[in-house]
């Protein structure tokens, strides 16, 4: 009788365990499906070059703009004003954001007595979101160039260009010439500056013209343009440096040249892949989908590797940028290069 009790309890326990694993299987399957249809598994492409395309990625990604703002028919967020033109909506939400911005800029000028362009207004809404809140909406937008979002000047510019392009055309010059953008860059510089008393003083006064040659000349000891773009010229392996001095301190730039692994730019983290054939491939992740992984090597070549062929995928702490510039460059060359980089505001 006691044996019978024991075996009954054991059978019940085993049936329960089988049930638990069956339910877990269903749960994991649902999670896989959700991951797939939400696009979570496909995220990872990185737009390079400051422009509307990069701005769109930031709008729907790192900047988290789309969690509050819809864009016309895209998205259902209603917490903050829709930034697209919505047919049939109450004015002014039926016209594109760039036209709406022009109207708001006019009102803003009348209110403050200061001249405002549509671009100024768009930039101000990022620099100081509480300055001129749209009626009916709460003053709750975060300052996106500060933590935790912390967009840099390039990313800010890209978002501005993206919004300009919504119903108009992107105008980089209007942004760089905007006094509000200058304020924003100054704010960013303060944010990333070293504590007082440690102002940057170069050991030697470098020559920016010579530095530019070092940067772009393919025969120079460190042809930086092979990987970095400045004003439309150069490769896309590393981050764009067109406005690097506007968003980074001199100390940070020097550290990035001499110790590239100390602080790897977001979106340029290196990965090491070990294939099933024991091949090791390193590079920067450029994209990923359900079947494959895209890696760009230090020559700028993108290689697609099937996930089925990957034995191991390991994030790396060492940047693919060479870390031996202090041995390659002379003291003068180094200061020339830094002087050139510091002109990129």
């Amino acid at each position, binding site marked *: 009788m006691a044996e019978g009790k024991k075996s009954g309890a054991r059978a019940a326990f085993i049936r329960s365990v089988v049930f638990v694993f069956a339910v877990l299987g269903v749960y994991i399957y649902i999670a896989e499906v959700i991951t797939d249809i939400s696009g979570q598994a496909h995220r990872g492409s990185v737009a390079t070059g400051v422009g509307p395309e990069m701005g769109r990625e930031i709008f729907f990604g790192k900047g988290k703009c789309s969690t*509050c703002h819809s864009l016309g028919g895209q998205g259902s967020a209603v917490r903050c004003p829709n930034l697209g033109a919505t047919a049939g909506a109450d004015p002014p939400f039926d016209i594109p954001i760039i036209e709406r911005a022009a109207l708001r800029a006019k009102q803003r000028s009348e209110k403050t007595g200061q001249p405002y362009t549509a671009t100024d207004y768009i930039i101000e809404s990022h620099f100081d979101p509480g300055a001129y809140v749209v009626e009916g909406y709460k003053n709750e937008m975060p300052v996106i160039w500060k933590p935790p979002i912390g967009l840099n000047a390039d990313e800010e510019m890209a978002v501005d260009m993206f919004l300009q392009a919504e119903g108009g055309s992107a105008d980089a010059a209007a942004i760089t010439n905007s006094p509000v953008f200058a304020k924003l860059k100054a704010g960013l510089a303060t944010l990333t500056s070293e504590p007082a008393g440690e102002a940057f003083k170069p050991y030697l006064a470098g020559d920016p013209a010579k530095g530019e040659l070092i940067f772009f000349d393919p025969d120079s000891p460190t042809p930086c343009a092979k990987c970095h773009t400045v004003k439309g010229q150069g490769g896309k392996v590393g981050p764009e440096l067109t406005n690097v001095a506007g968003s980074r301190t001199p100390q940070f730039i020097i550290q990035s040249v001499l110790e590239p692994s100390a602080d790897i730019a977001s979106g340029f983290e290196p990965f090491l892949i070990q294939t099933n054939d024991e091949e090791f491939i390193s590079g920067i992740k450029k994209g990923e989908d359900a079947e494959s992984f895209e890696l760009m090597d230090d020559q700028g070549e993108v290689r697609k590797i099937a996930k089925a062929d990957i034995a191991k995928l390991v994030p790396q702490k060492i940047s693919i940028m060479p870390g031996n510039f202090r041995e390659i460059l002379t003291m003068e060359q180094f200061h020339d290069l830094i002087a050139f980089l510091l002109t990129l505001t």
Partner: protein
Amino acid sequence: MNYAQGVRKEGWWRSSAATFLWALLLALIAVPVLAATDGTVIRDEYRTFMGIGSRQVIWFVAEVHLMFGAFVLGVPIFAVTLEAIGAKTKDVRYDNLAHEFVKLLSAAFSTTAALGGLLAFSLFGLYPKFMAYMSNVFHDVFYVYALLFFAESFTLYLYYYTWDTMQKHKWAHVWLGVLLNVWGIILMGLANSWAGFMMSPVAIDPETNAFTGTVSQAIQTPLWHPINVHRLLGNIAFGGFIGGAYAAVRYLGAETEKDKAHYDWMGYISNFIGVAGLIPLPFAGYWMGREVYSVSSVMGNNMMGGAFSWTFILQAVLVGTLFIGSNYYLWVGMGRIPGAERYKGSIKFIEAILLICFGIWLTPHNLPLNPEEQLLLGGQYHPTFKFLGLMSAKNAVINFIILSTFFSFLLYRRGNKHDGIPFSRQGSKAKIVLCSVGAICLLVLGWYGNFLYHADPAMFDLPADRAKYFKVPAGLLFLQMAMVVVAIGLTFINKGKLGQALYLGVGVFSIVFVLGVYGFTIMKVANPLLRNIAFTQWSMMMTCLLLVSTIDVYLFAGAKEYGDIQWGKMPAYSQYILILLCMAIVLNIGLMGFIRSGLREDWHIYGVLRDTSPWAFTPTNATMAKMVSACLVAFLGIVSFVFWLTGLSKHEEGGGSGAEETHVVKGPVKGPIPVAGIAVGAHHRSADNLSQGLGVHRSDRGM
């Protein structure tokens, strides 16, 4: 002292010694780290454990520890409640059940402590820089935490091992259980303060990111109480559903009718406790979400409309499983209640409501999609259905789900009853209680209605002309106040059922159909007011639960029965529902932990200490599901092992199942029927009923 007592004493020392050792180890590892913060530079920011990333290790250990923590903190709350019900009503069934729960608790406690030690080791070893920062802020709290751990463990063992010896001083023993809960809640609060600080740090120097405040400030961050309340309720639900699964497995393996009856009843009570904890949880969650949003709109938006929006779809699947599963279990249970067939027709309507609400709750909210992803989804949002994913729709349906579940309980409760004694013939106590409950409802509704009616729109950053939008929710609150008076008046003239129907009907109409739809208008023209609409819905819904259940108690007081509930006559598949509910709550606790922790994204301490490890990214939902499933397997595996060990000890004592440790009482016993978390009213049972193994007295166990 006999053998069984010897075994118990030995067990007590073993458990106490284990707890002591773990607390000592915790203190030992804390000391060098605390010393390090006084001057030693901690160079290594991150380490790995045998090639496994630091995040995976911490995720797994912390999650399993939290699951055990939830169990050992949740169970004492309802164990002592059950014990108090037993003491008050002299119904020994509740005392037996409370003791059985506490027996599981004492076995699980040492495991929780051991896992806590492992978590502390892992954190200090794998995240030295982060832990140095946290130690710098909280080192005083660590010592208090360790001391409280002693207090809780000794109180627990005192509570458990004096169960028999203090039978003559039952209320003193109940207060010992209350003390155990006090320690447990303070312990939980201290641990929550660390999580709260990581999400909403205060007193931080903006230049150096150093903490400049006091320990008290570090504890009382804006998210501390929302996390406390959410976890407290979650722990009750968690403990209830775990107890339900335990009862289910024992039921499935039970060979005798007596055992089946015992574990069937235990399963029912456990499910009741689970649902009682579950019902207020969505609102505690809403409060917490609102506070998260107030701390950082970035975190708040990321939660519901950003990276975690699809995780909430998965959460909706789990919460839907909990509500639909609980209802289904009740409906199946009505099969063993003579007379309950009268309500069979209503069940299909409740089922339809639950499924429709579940579907709406599953509708995705805002999604951060790029064009490629939109192509993958097959285009833009549906012009109509996209609104079902918005907060207003979700608030409406969760209220409807809760009210429908409550309605299921009402049907279940009155399943085998004829009408009771007319209210007008009941004593003055009934009238005082009903009027008092009515007064509470009037106070809550009146206070909030008055606030909304006179609220200045500027408080919500809204222009003055939006004041008119405040009047609708205020008006509905005033209408519900009128219905309180009507429902009580009808009950006084012996038309309580009509009073209940009117109160529930008007409540559902206002909460779901008026405010649910009106919420969309509010979102468009006065968005900040939406949270007040949600609170209006919640307060009205809570008064529905309170007033209608109170009326119900007196409607069926002294009612004759169609027949006795046939405990132990549940079909086997019903027990798998209890196991499913247990899994759903365990998976849910893991999922919600993922969201809460993931909201910090690449910050250990939000906006202060950045996570610079290679693992500073948000894993996919698929990864989360696999990790949480692994935690579930580990948790349930260890729990099963611990419960098996408990069973071994019982066999040594010469006992059988919980039911076998008791003997049947000859004679009627008055017992309470739990309704909405309170035990009220008297319920007559016959000796035949008790012979099902329910009305039982504990024998002199182990003597």
